[in-house]
């Protein structure tokens, strides 16, 4: 058995070498990326092995077919033979097909076992898919952030030239250390998304209510770009994945900075905010997180995404306004923002939408502060 396995392994891995002048093993725009991890390289090799087996079978089958079509054409005077089966021939090709499949199954199983491993990592990162951005949380250090597309709407609309990384760039990439086993815990907040980084050969669905695992171990620093690969709504194509792999020291510094920033955020909550400060912060939050649906001018895309400009809630009902931001709207695309963002962010965006456009003049003009959000949370907790 061990001998058979060895022969198989040899046969399988000899296949691409036979065709090495043709094998386009280099990273290219028309083949699967080799990637940078052991798993991605194994998968690439497996892909090429299966590909070449298919090519060989295809060449044999098509040669026989086109040769028959040429040789036995009636215009050349071919007379039809009169046979319609051959028992041993049929048994023969059935057995041959089975053997080829076993030949394919052996390395496939090996690579699958190599790739499949849900043991804990040195670093564990919770990845949450949102409509339409990714949230990354470092579980050991309890810090996290959102990663949004940074390509401008003007580039998408063609008003300005498109940049080199059009639709493949984000405001804040995921940062991971090199030469470290990193485990990803992947889930969805609203609909199903799928987190894919081709260079790691990691593609895992982000499903609400489930936590899937995947892992990688990146040997060298670099920037790796991926995408969302499960249809998740109108901005499905606009939530790329960008991962920056850095040396361990740089990673530790990054985390330390994140922890410090989070502490600063917490202090901001107790600060007394002016209307102007809230407006400024709210406007930038709005353009990143809200404008996709409700539009920059607050008009929304009715009836799916309601207008905020002139909305009764935004004009005169601040407590309902807070509730919607915190809890979302059941049965609609409006997500609950309460668990994902700081009190400061929520307060500032509410204040912004109550003042922007002509809402401030038309409505009660109530300013919502971070303390109001804290009070709301405390009330709910009771």
């Amino acid at each position, binding site marked *: 058995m061990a001998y058979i396995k060895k022969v198989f392994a040899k046969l399988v891995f000899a296949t691409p070498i036979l065709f090495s002048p043709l094998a386009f093993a280099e990273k290219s725009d028309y083949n699967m990326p080799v990637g940078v991890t052991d798993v991605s390289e194994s998968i690439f090799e497996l892909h090429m092995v299966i590909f070449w087996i298919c090519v060989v079978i295809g060449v044999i089958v098509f040669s026989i077919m086109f040769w028959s079509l040429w040789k036995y054409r009636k215009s050349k005077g071919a*007379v039809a033979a009169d046979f319609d089966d051959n028992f041993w021939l049929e048994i023969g090709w059935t057995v041959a097909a089975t053997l080829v499949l076993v030949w394919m199954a052996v390395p496939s199983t090996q690579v699958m076992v190599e790739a499949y491993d849900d043991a804990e990592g040195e670093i564990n990162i919770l990845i949450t898919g949102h409509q339409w951005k990714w949230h990354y949380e470092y579980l050991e250090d309890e810090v996290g952030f959102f990663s949004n597309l940074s390509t401008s709407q003007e580039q998408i609309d063609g008003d300005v030239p498109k940049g080199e990384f059009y639709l493949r760039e984000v405001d804040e990439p995921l940062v991971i250390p090199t030469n470290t086993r990193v485990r990803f815990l992947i889930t969805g907040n609203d609909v199903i998304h799928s987190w894919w980084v081709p260079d790691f050969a990691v593609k895992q669905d982000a499903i609400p209510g489930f936590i899937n695992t995947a892992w990688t171990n990146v040997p060298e620093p670099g920037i790796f770009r991926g995408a969302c690969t499960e249809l998740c709504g109108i901005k499905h194509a606009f939530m790329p994945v960008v991962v920056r792999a850095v040396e361990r020291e740089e990673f530790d510094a990054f985390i330390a900075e994140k922890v410090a920033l989070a502490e600063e955020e917490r202090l901001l909550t107790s600060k007394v905010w002016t209307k102007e400060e809230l407006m400024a912060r709210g406007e930038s939050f709005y353009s990143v997180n809200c404008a996709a649906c409700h539009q920059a001018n607050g008009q929304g895309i009715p009836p799916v995404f309601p207008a905020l400009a002139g909305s009764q809630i935004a004009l005169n009902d601040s407590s309902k306004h807070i509730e919607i931001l915190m809890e979302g709207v059941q049965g609609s695309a409006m997500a609950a923002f309460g668990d994902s963002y700081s009190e400061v962010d929520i307060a500032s965006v509410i204040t912004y939408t109550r003042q922007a456009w002509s809402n401030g003049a038309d409505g009660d003009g109530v300013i919502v502060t971070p303390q109001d959000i804290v009070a709301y949370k405390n009330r709910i907790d009771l």
Partner: protein
Amino acid sequence: MSTVVESHDHGHHGPAKGLSRWLFTTNHKDIGTLYLWFSFIMLFIGGGMAMVIRAELFQPGLQIVQPEFFNQMTTNHGLIMVFGVIMPAFVGLANWMLPMQIGAPDMALPRLNNLSFWLLPMAFGILISTLFMPEGGPNFGWTFYAPLSTTYAPSTVNFFIFSVHVMGVSSILGSINIITTIFNMRAPGMTLMKMPLFVWSWLITAYLLIAVMPVLAGVVTMMLMDINFGTSFFNAAGGGDPVLFQHVFWFFGHPEVYIMILPAFGIVSHIIETFSRKPIFGYSSMVYAMASIAILSFVVWAHHMFTVGMPLAGELFFMYSTMLIAIPTGVKVFNWIATMFRGSITFETPMLFSIAFVALFTIGGFSGLMLAIVPADFQYHDTYFVVAHFHYVLVPGALFGIIAAAYYWLPKWTGNMYDETLGKLHFWLTFISVNVTFFPMHFVGLAGMPRRYPDYALQFADFNALISVGAFMFGLTQLLFLFIVIKTIRSGKQAKPEVWEGAGDLGLEWTLSSPPPYHSFTVQPQVK
């Protein structure tokens, strides 16, 4: 039915006049014609949507449509092509050909037949009307994964669910009719293992339909409950399971894939034996291969879900079971080639389409085999590689089968030969454009372009422009097909009863006049 029917003549049983002929018809040929025209019209509607998709994808950036409408286009293109083009076309061919191939006067249940057709325009009328509603039509992909299709769907999803129910009823009624006809109305002497392969392919397909359409009805009903009645089948927040949706959907979906290809296997077998002037090689292995494919189709569904997070044993089971399908499929391809081997081959249009079918369907089979390999599928899944794969098996596969059947039997149906020069022109334009359209999709997919994207990164631009050019060419070429069909119906060289040289021995349909009498066989023929 095995008693000899006395020959009698009550004057002429012709069709009724005017619109009522089509509304109230119970004649298998009229209903077959209705199905085929319906499918043809839907081909242009679904194809028009594909043109919108390709126009938007011609360049990176958003130029022509917004993502919201783009998603409606991809969703409805898929739904219409699957349920409105391929399936009705095969049912239309079954209606026309089954009674003529088994020596019967008509289908067993003619009124049911009328109902199952007229449900379809209703179903698709409802579906397409959603595109004109304020919230827009279904936008969650033809696979409509929950919760995007439930909690996050536009309210028009309810019309979509109703329309799927109506399509399901239509398919189930049609299948009951086909099974009943095949079992009860065969000519004396035609044992099961003497049935033409198209009849066999449809018998197996009809069983698949009866097995899985209720599953589809079940899954859309669960959606309906989640959306309107507060249940949580697929809502994780209520204790439900979004992955359950995918398991149930694909338990329907995978047999559905074979529903869309098995009848084409039957058609291509007939055409290859006719134009090779040699009986089909390995008839019984052809039957067993189709039956094996049908049975295996029930145990491979989760290969559509390799990235949802299944346990290792599950991933491996579905990989192995999927790879097994390559065996019966391979046997069929080998048999077709063995039929051509030492034949006396001519290359009329139906044969050209059938040869292209064998070659290009095999390419789709190879990419299917690659997709079955779980670890590699992590890289292929939900990219254009998958789009290339299923278009290779559905366009040069199922659709070429249907076009080949139309050229093959059109002279029988109308009594007029089609224009061979135009037919060949249609073939070559179609063959070239189909490959220009779908072959580069393998490359963009491998290079990392996900499917269902209205906009994409710059490195995919060249291939996408090429794909779009191919798609426009393919779309325009089908107008030529429409022209050829209409021209053949209106005029053409008178076709002989056997139509194709030597076809008289190949099946009962070639013993009837061209066009055949309104009630195909009023006297049952004897099959030796």
